[in-house]
């Protein structure tokens, strides 16, 4: 694998993308697989533990299956515990995540297009202020938002989660960069010459070109909202409105507070955790193209 082989295989175009060298390194492969094992270990543990009965969970080795396969039994108990509250939490999470992601991606697409294709007074300033907002600590924002929302009666409603989640500064950045590279000016010119209004051009011509960028922002906002814990923790009092993260943390708190007495709750926390990560992992596997291109944009353009 010296310079000669590299010259033989010029590293341009597709050749570069599909494997740079013919040689494979065992050391690197073993190292990478060891790393992969570390990152998969907790998830494997979660799967194994979800398949155990309460007694086996405490009495058998954590990283291997025990005799009784109780996964479906555990799922049934998790779902039906406390009047199907788990399904409610799952539904809430879906509602918050999908609404925030759809709305957020639309806002970011419109604004990204505006910032990329139009010059107007204050455009740079506005853009920089939005990007600077990532520095603001979550508490600095969440505490006053909670106080404001409780004054206007929005605290302890789904809006308290959805409205703040609509704004994703990284999403705006991504869309702006994406519009610059994916939407040629000539296309807009053509639309204008045909007499189409600016908004008609956006909705009928541009939006279709933006689909991959839109999907990326959608996915990232979806994950952010799905994983959010702090905001719903402070905004919501009614357990019927909890998303899955706050609900599971509550069960975990009850289990920890009761010590050994509520050993029954721990299998539910474990199985509930498994049920809540599976949809996201599947989404990530199927939508690889989108998060990869998103992170690519983030990495290359600064």
């Amino acid at each position, binding site marked *: *694998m*010296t*310079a000669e082989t*590299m*010259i033989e295989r010029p590293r341009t175009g597709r050749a*570069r993308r599909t494997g*740079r060298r013919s040689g494979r390194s065992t050391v*690197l*492969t073993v*190292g*990478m697989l060891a*790393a*992969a094992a570390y*990152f*998969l270990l*907790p*998830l494997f*543990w979660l799967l194994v533990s979800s398949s155990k009965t309460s007694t086996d969970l*405490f009495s058998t080795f*954590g990283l291997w299956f025990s005799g009784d396969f109780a996964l479906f039994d555990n799922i049934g108990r998790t779902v039906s515990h406390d009047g199907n509250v788990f399904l409610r939490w799952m539904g809430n999470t879906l509602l918050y995540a999908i609404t925030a992601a759809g709305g957020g991606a639309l*806002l*970011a697409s*419109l*604004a990204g297009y*505006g910032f990329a*294709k*139009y*010059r107007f007074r204050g*455009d740079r300033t506005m853009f920089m202020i939005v990007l600077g907002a990532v*520095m*603001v*600590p*979550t*508490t*600095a*924002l969440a505490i*006053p*938002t909670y106080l*404001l929302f409780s004054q206007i009666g929005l605290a302890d409603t789904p809006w308290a989660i959805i409205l703040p989640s609509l704004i994703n500064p990284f999403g*705006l950045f991504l869309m702006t960069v994406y519009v610059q590279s994916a939407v040629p000016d000539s296309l807009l010119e053509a639309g204008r010459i045909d007499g189409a209004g600016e*908004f008609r051009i*956006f909705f009928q011509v541009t939006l279709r070109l933006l689909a991959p960028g839109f999907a990326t922002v959608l996915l990232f906002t979806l994950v952010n909202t799905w994983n959010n*814990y702090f905001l719903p923790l*402070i905004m919501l009092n009614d357990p019927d409105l909890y998303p*899955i993260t706050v609900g599971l943390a509550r069960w*975990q*708190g009850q289990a920890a507070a009761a010590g050994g007495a509520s050993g029954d709750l721990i299998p539910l926390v*474990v199985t509930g*955790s498994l049920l*809540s990560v599976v949809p*996201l*992992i599947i989404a*990530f*596997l199927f939508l690889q193209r989108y998060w*990869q291109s998103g*992170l690519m944009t*983030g*990495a*290359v353009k*600064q």
Partner: protein
Amino acid sequence: MTATATARKARAEAPARRGRTNRSGRAGYLFVAPFMIVFAAMFLVPLIYAAYFSFFREQLVGGTVFVGFENYTRAFGDAELWTGIGRVGLFFLLQVPVMLVVALFLALALDTGMVRLSRFARLSIFVPYAVPGVIAALMWGYLYGPDFGPFAQLAEKIGASAPDFLGADLMLGSLANIVFWEFTGYNMVILFAALRAVPGELYEAAAVDGAGPWRTAWSIKIPALRGALMVCLIFSIIGSFQLFNEPNLLQGLAPTVIDRAYTPNLYAYNLAFVGQEYNYAAAVSFILGMVILVGSYVFMFLTNRRSRS
């Protein structure tokens, strides 16, 4: 109305190009307006409101009174707050270099194209990013635990006792491991993506000069990653100083180790929602925001200067 009418008139009269700029400017505002309005309502208004009420204090007698900078002077002398800031600072110094060096190494290894099953490895390493921080903390909490954690079980089997991962000495390291688990893959993918964007001619030139893989990595790839590494670092500064979910979850398992002010965000949360001291909590959050801002700028300044010299 008049403005619209004038613009329309101007467009009709002026040559095509000038007309377009006018129309463009107005349409630009309309496109960014929905985002900016929600942004103002969800970011600017709460921040201004917090800044305002950080100058007040609620008293049992006399209600809310203006106290000027009193909350801030109190915060500057608050040992609990500064212990917490020191702790997350230490956390940053411990965790972030390890995470970024490992992420960099993994990205470079993937980029050589010499790894078998590289797609599987890349996805496995990235997958924790899709796991909510709460669930990551829950899982690791159980894994660390003395009751049915596999580490404790293994130690028991060989007749030893497992280290007390949730004890006072190791807690910061245990938290660092959770954050490492969550975000190494994310950083790796960013760095890997940046590596893919390095122009191929650079590698050809290096090859012509007789550079081996290590030399290429050191002299071409790592310098090319400067921007991407900077992004990873800034996000890591922000994330470290705002640490909340993981200590909040582990608090239930180790209530004596993680106190109410273990991290500054935990402190602000407890001040506001347990102690009802909203005004003081706002001042504490602002000071934390300042620390993050100053930290990020100092960092950017240092790296920029070094690269110039």
